[in-house]
């Protein structure tokens, strides 16, 4: 039984660094979670490193925590990861330049659609005898 556990435990050992938390840590934990939720797990499919149980994600979370504890700002932490992995590591594209389109287009659709509905409903509720 012990050998069974020993034979298979290795992939799971990475997280053994997790320590019991003190109340003072919980603010740091919350800040870490916030930044981690914006970073993509490199070995998963679209999960954030906050959500992913994979080893690399937990290690990256640890890096985030250490950097925040050392006084870096969330933007600086994110910039660090971008310098290593590229923009791809952010789970949401920075709304700069070309990326603006992905934010803008749905909004435009709603605005144009609403406008169309207003015009159409006006047209369709006109009394049939009045001039066009």
């Amino acid at each position: 039984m012990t050998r069974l556990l020993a034979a298979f435990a290795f992939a799971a050992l990475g997280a053994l660094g997790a320590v019991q938390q003190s109340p003072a840590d919980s603010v740091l934990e919350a800040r870490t979670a916030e930044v981690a939720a914006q970073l993509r797990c490199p070995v998963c499919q679209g999960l954030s490193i906050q959500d992913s149980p994979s080893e690399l994600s937990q290690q990256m979370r640890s890096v985030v925590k250490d950097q925040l504890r050392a006084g870096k700002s969330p933007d600086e932490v994110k910039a660090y990861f971008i310098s290593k992995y590229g923009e791809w590591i952010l789970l949401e594209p920075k709304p700069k330049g070309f990326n603006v389109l992905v934010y803008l287009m749905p909004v435009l659709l709603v605005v144009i659609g609403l406008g169309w509905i207003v015009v159409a409903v006006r047209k369709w509720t006109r009394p049939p005898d009045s001039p066009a």
Partner: protein
Amino acid sequence: MTRLLAHDAILVSMAVVLFGIVAVPVAMRTGRRGLLPYAFAAVYTNFFLVSVAAVAMVYALVTHDFSVSYVAQVGGRATPLLFTVISLWGALEGSILFWAWVLSMYAAAVVWINSRRPGNLVPYAAATLLFVSFFFAILLVGPADPFGVVSPVPPDGPGPNPLLQNHILMAIHPPLLYLGYVGMSVPFAFAVGAMLSGEVETDDWMRITRRWTLSAWALLSAAIIAGMWWSYEVLGWGGYWAWDPVENASFLPWLTATAFLHSAMVQERRGMLRLWNLNLVVGTFLLTILGTFLTRSGIVSSVHAFTTGTIGYYFLAFIAIVMLASLALVAGNSERLRSTGRFDSAASRETVFLLNNLFLTAFMFTVLTGTLFPLVAEAIKGVKVSVGEPFFNRMSLPIVVTLLFLMGVGPALPWKAASKAELKAKLVPPAAGAGLMLVIALVAGARNVYALLAFAFAGYAAFANLREYWIGMRARRIAHGEGWGTALVRLVGGNRHRYGGYTAHLGVILVAFGIAASSTFRTEYEATIKPGETISLSGHTLRLKAMWGREEPQRSVVGATLEVMNGSMVKGTMEPRMNFYPMSQSPVPTPAVRSRFLGDLYVNLQAFRPDGSNATIRVIYEPLVPWIWFGGGVVVFGALIAIFPTGRRTDA
């Protein structure tokens, strides 16, 4: 032997289908309507032949016939029988076979029910379904051939993907999904049939397919909820939706189908929005094919992605043909579909349906843009970007909140026109529901604006929909002196379409509450503890009793037994596990979930020491998550109410 039989069955079916596809337009153009029964016979024959192939595959799987390539790929002697059977849809080739089978079933059923209708609509619709079948048959003899020969025959196989063997929902989610997805081919086929046969100006195609569309929609809704539930119970991160491209792919056609269900009512009553509805139906089908394309082509990386290869090019060709042909058809027919009706007033249910369609379409467009944007960015800018959960949550929240509000306004407003007094009488009272939920949410600690709006509007919509029941039941009691129970049954029975809809709304609202609560009030905690120690979260305490391990035929399992404590009394046990499959590098976790009315206690075993001396446990408390699954059931129930008729068609 099995292999040969099945492979040949598909080949023959291709010929049969081709005959049917050709026979219909020939019959139409040359007036030889005597050909039509043969074309219909082709549909039945195709169903028979594809069934032969599908049954042969299941037989090969169950008898572990590793000379068949698909069985060699996903079969394994140690795999439990149930998971062997359902591995039919577990990998690419099998899933294509399954799709083809479901499609042939739908085609046969549609023809069986409608073949006696005079005119050209049904033949062309049948031909369209045969055309889609032909594509899948090509795949089955080409890049997705599950009946390849394996020689020498291996003694055993690797078994299905470990993730697909872990939970019973794997038997439920894919079939539901395929039934829903493929079901959307039926309204599409009739829409195309209507355009080809020139019958597009009548609403017949819509009338005939209304129940098909509603059924496919119900199945797709159930499939999405089942998929969410599976993801929640299996993947170990406590979430149920990650905006993964393939999750999005199942959601996109659901959105347009939902829009269609509503705007179809406007077409039936007012003869308006006909071009728009045609676009919605065609769009829904195209989105189902797009979804399949995304999963199987590898152009976006996804949890679901099947192995890729040349099949992407086949799908690309098919998508291109179908998109070009169907959108050209719609555009070419657009002149004949001018709106002939009018609205009586802007303050009416019709207007609300227009808004509903706008926001559902906007939602679809947002998710579609987000899913495809990484590809676009790479094509145009050459950079790789990610579009993940933060983006989708941010963009969809305003839309969802608006839709919740509309779900309260729509049922409250009457068709045609509402006077100012009526508006006030109908729209103001549900605000009590909004206020109540707002207070509850604030008291529970929610401060995020969207969360509060979501709770408030969900409360509004719940009140409004329930009130419609109450108003109807009260009227019956006064008019007929019925008891509440009888009034309810007779009310719903007399207006199945309407009250089925309200019930479905209530289901969606329950899902909304579940999602809103589990996102806003979720708490989690992770710690490494030794046997005998406890871990606590939000008033729940768990004590680690022991670590254990066991061997199963297809895997090794390591687990932790945790006792749920109430003071010093043991209320129950939870056993999160890690499953080690020989073929997989990393273990597959099985979280332990304790579901109660108010929420779930969700426990995952993150890591452990080989000697069992301690374990890292992650505990998450997810309020109201069971409401999501229950709400999904209510949605399907509502759809069922609407699907089955009473005989007399009454106001909807």
